[in-house]
C-alpha cells in the first residue's frame, strides 16, 4: 500500500520551474530513488518532502494524511544530508541522541546503542565526529536520522561524498541498514548504479518533470522516453521509420526487429534505442565501419559508424579491428522504438 504520496507537486524559484507537476507514490517499507542529472529538480523534490521548501501547489501525504502545511519539525521525517551536517560540537552519541530529547536518559542511551549497532558502529558513542572516516560519518548521519524512528527517511546524495573505492561497500551496508530498519525511504542520486543497487523503484526526473517511474528492470528494458533510455544505461540511437508494430526500417533499407510498443505511430519516424549488449557483429545486416575499440577485460566496447549515427556494442575482443567494415544485427528484446 502507498504510504508516502506526492500529488501534483510544483515549485518555482523566481518564475523558473524547479519541480513541475510531479506525482509519485512510495509503498511502506520500500526504497525509492529520485534519479536525474543536476538541475533536474530531484533535490528540490526531496526538500519539499522534508518541508524545508513549501510547494507552490500540490500535496505531500503520509498514510493518507496531508502534511503539506506541516513544518520540518512536526513532520517527523528523518533526513541524511549530502555533507552529513553532523554537529561538530557534539560527539557521536550526542549526535545520534539529538532527536531523542523527549526520552529518559536510559531509554536514550539504549536507543543510541541500538541504532549505532544497526549501522555497524556499536561502541562509537564517545568518539568525536572529526575522528571518523567519511564512511563512518555517513553511517553516523544515517543512525542519527533513524534514531527518532522517523516515518520516512530522506537521503540527499548519500554516497557522493565518499571515495569511489568506498562507495560499493558503503552502499551494501546502507541497504542492509535500511532493510533492518524497515523504514520507507526516498533518496536522491545522479548515478544510475547507485539508484539501481539501493532502490526498489526509481523515479527519473528531468527539468523538474517526472519522466518515468518503475523498477530498475522496467526502466532499462522499457524506457518510456529517449531521455530515460539514454540516461539509464548506455544506449545508441538510430533514426528510422516504424513499418510494423515490431519492425523498423533504418538507413539503406535495413530492417531491424524492435520490441512492440504502443507509444509510436506506425508508418511514422522513430528513434530506435539499442543497448550495447543487444548488438552483434554478423555476416549481414546494418553496414558500418569500426572507429574505436576500448578493452574492458575479456570483452571490448566497439564504436561503429553507420549511416545516420554511431552504434556502441560490446563483443569479444577479437570480434573486429578499428577500420574494419562490419555488419550489425540486433536482438529485439533490447531494441525499442521511442518517439523522436
Amino acid at each position, binding site marked *: 500500500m502507498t504510504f508516502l504520496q506526492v500529488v501534483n507537486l510544483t515549485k518555482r524559484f523566481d518564475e523558473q520551474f524547479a519541480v513541475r507537476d510531479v506525482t509519485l507514490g512510495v509503498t511502506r517499507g520500500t526504497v525509492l530513488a529520485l534519479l536525474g542529472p543536476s538541475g533536474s529538480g530531484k533535490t528540490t523534490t526531496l526538500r519539499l518532502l*522534508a*518541508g*524545508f521548501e513549501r510547494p507552490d501547489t500540490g500535496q505531500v501525504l503520509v498514510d493518507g494524511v496531508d502534511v503539506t502545511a506541516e*513544518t*520540518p*519539525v512536526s513532520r*517527523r*521525517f*528523518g*533526513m541524511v*544530508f*549530502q*555533507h552529513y*551536517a*553532523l*554537529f*561538530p*560540537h557534539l560527539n557521536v552519541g550526542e549526535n545520534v541522541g*539529538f*532527536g531523542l*530529547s523527549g526520552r529518559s536518559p536510559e531509554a536514550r542511551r539504549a536507543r543510541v546503542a541500538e541504532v549505532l549497532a544497526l549501522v555497524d558502529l556499536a561502541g562509537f558513542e564517545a568518539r568525536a565526529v572529526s575522528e571518523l572516516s567519511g564512511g563512518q560519518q555517513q553511517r553516523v548521519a544515517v543512525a*542519527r*536520522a533513524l534514531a*527518532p524512528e522517523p516515518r520516512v527517511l*530522506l537521503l540527499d546524495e548519500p554516497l557522493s561524498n565518499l571515495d569511489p573505492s568506498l562507495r560499493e561497500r558503503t552502499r551494501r551496508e546502507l541497504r542492509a541498514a535500511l532493510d533492518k530498519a524497515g523504514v520507507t525511504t526516498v533518496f536522491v542520486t545522479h548515478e544510475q548504479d547507485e539508484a539501481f543497487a539501493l532502490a526498489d523503484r526509481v523515479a527519473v526526473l528531468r527539468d523538474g518533470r517526472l519522466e518515468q517511474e518503475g523498477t530498475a528492470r522496467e526502466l532499462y528494458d522499457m524506457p518510456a522516453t529517449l531521455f530515460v533510455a539514454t540516461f539509464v544505461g548506455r544506449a545508441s540511437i538510430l533514426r528510422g521509420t516504424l513499418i510494423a508494430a515490431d519492425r523498423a526500417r533504418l538507413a539503406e533499407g535495413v530492417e531491424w526487429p524492435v520490441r512492440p510498443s504502443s507509444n509510436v505511430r506506425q508508418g511514422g519516424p522513430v528513434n530506435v534505442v539499442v543497448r550495447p549488449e543487444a548488438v552483434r557483429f554478423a555476416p549481414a545486416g546494418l553496414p558500418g565501419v569500426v572507429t574505436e575499440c576500448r578493452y574492458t577485460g575479456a570483452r571490448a566496447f566497439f564504436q561503429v559508424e553507420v549511416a545516420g549515427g554511431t552504434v556502441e556494442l560490446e563483443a569479444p575482443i577479437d570480434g573486429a579491428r578499428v577500420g574494419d567494415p562490419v555488419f550489425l544485427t540486433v536482438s529485439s528484446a533490447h531494441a525499442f522504438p521511442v518517439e523522436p
Partner: protein
Amino acid sequence: MRGRPRGILLTLFLLWLVVYPLLMVVLDSVRGPSGWSLAQVAEFGRTPEEWQALWGSLWISMVSVVFAGAIGIPLAFVFERMEFPGRRILGALVALPAVLPPLVGVMAFLFLYGESGFLSRIVKGAFSLEDAPWRLAGAPAILLVHAYSMYVYFYLFTRAGLAKVDSSMIEAAQSLGASRSSTLFRVTLPLLGPQIIAAALLTFMTSLGSFSAPYIFGGGFRVMTTQIVSTKLNGNDAMAMVETVALAVVALVGLALFRWTSSERSVAAVGKGAPPARKLEQPVARWLAAVVGWAVAVVVLLPHATLILISFVPMRTWTTQLMPPVYTLGNYGALIREPERLRPLINSLWMAVVATVAALAVALWAGRAIVRRRVRLARVIDILTNVPWAVPGTVLAIALATTFSVNAPWAGRWVLVGTFFILPLAYLIRNIPLTAGPVIAGFRQLDPGLDEAAASLGASRWATLRRVTMPLLRPALLACGALAFATAVGDFVTSIVLYTFETRPISVEILSALRQNDIGIAAAFGVVLMLVSAGAMAVGTSR
C-alpha cells in the same frame, strides 16, 4: 515570502534604537521656542569658540592617527617579523592599553605624568625645583593619552595583516631583485593597506569621540565633545543640539572619506601563508630588539603599575614625598564596606551585563535574519547595526537624553531619563556594532545544513538556537561579549550625560573621588575596572 514581516520588525526596532534619537537631535537643532528656527544654527556659525572646538576635534583626531600609526606599525613589524628573547610575552603585553577604560587611562597618566605625578616629583627632586616642572594640560596632554591608548589599533591590525601576507609574494619580489627596503615599500606595505586604513579609521573615530582626556586635561583647550557637555550642563539645550549635529556631521564625513579611499583596495593575499619570523643572528641586533621590546613594555605597563601602587595609598598620607609613605588595603575595604562606594560597583556590573546580553540577543536576531532567513532588508539591517559605531558617544548620549525625556508612547518616546533604564539602553546601543559584526560573520560560516538537520530531528527554532547555533558560535559570542562588557563597564562618555545619583556607574564615582582629591579610592576603582576588563577579555579569548 515568510521572512518579510520578521525583517521588518527587526528593521523598525533598530531604526527606533539607533536612528530615531539622532533624528530627534537634528529636529531639535532647528526648532526654537516658537516653531522652526535657524537662530541657533546662525549663532553657532557666528561664535568663534564653536569653530575652535570643531577644528580642535578635527586636528587632534588627525594628529592622533599619525602618532598612533607611527608607534603601532613599527612595533607590529618588530614583534611579527623578528625573533628575540621574550617576544611572545612582550607581544601580548604591548596590547595591554586596550584593557584600560579611557577614564582610567587618563587617571593613570595624571598620577604618572601629571603635575604631582611620579615623574614630576622625580624631576623636581633631582633638580631641587620649587614648582612642578610642567603641567599636563591642553592639546599635548590629550595627544599623549591618545597615542598611548590608540597605537594598539595599529599594532593589532598590522600584526594580523602581516600574518596573512603571503610569503611567496615577498620571495617573488626578492627574486625580481628588490632589496629588503624596496620590498617593504613596494609590496608589504601596499598589501597591508586595508588593515592600516581600517586602523586609521578606528583611531580617527575614537579620537573624535574621545571625551575623558579632553575633559580632564583640556583646560582651556576646546574640543567638540567637552563643548557639548558643558553647553548642556549650562542649560543651553538648543545650542547643545546644534553642536551635537555638527560633531555627528564631522564623524559621518570622516567615515565617508575613509570608506571612499579604501573602497578600491581590497587585496586578497591567499597562498602559502606568512613567512616565519626572522631569527636575528647577530647578537647585537638580538639584544637591541629585546631592549626595545622590554623598554616599550615598561612604558606601556607604567600606568597600570602606577594605578595599582596608588590604590594602596590612604587619603592625605602622600604629600611632598617622592614615594607614598603608607600603603594599606583600606581603599579596597572602603569599596566593599561603604554602601555609597559599593553602589556604583554593583550598578556598573549589572548595567554592563544587561547591555551585553541584550546586544548579543540583537546580534543573534540580526545574524539569523540576514544569513539564515535572507530577509529582503538584510542590507539595511547590516548598515543599521553599524550606525552607532559612527556616532561619537557624546552625540548618542545627547540624542538619548533628548528623545527619552518626553512621554509620547505613540511616537515611541518614553521618559527614561532619570530612570534605571537609560544607561543600560545607551550601553546596549554602543555595544550593538561590537556584537553584531562578529556574530553575523559567525553565522555566515555556519553550515545551514546544521539548522535543517536539527529541524528534521524535531528541534524547534529555540531548541536549535540553544543546542546548535549558540554552542557553535560560542567563540564569537564570548569574544565580542567580553569586548562589549568591558566597554560598557568602563563607559564614561555616555554615563556622564545620562547618570542619576541612584544609577551612577564606577566612572562617575572615580570622577567625584578625583574631585575630592581622594586619589586612593579613585585608583582602587580604576584597578577594579582594569581587572574586570582584563578578566572579561581573558574569558573572551579563551578557547
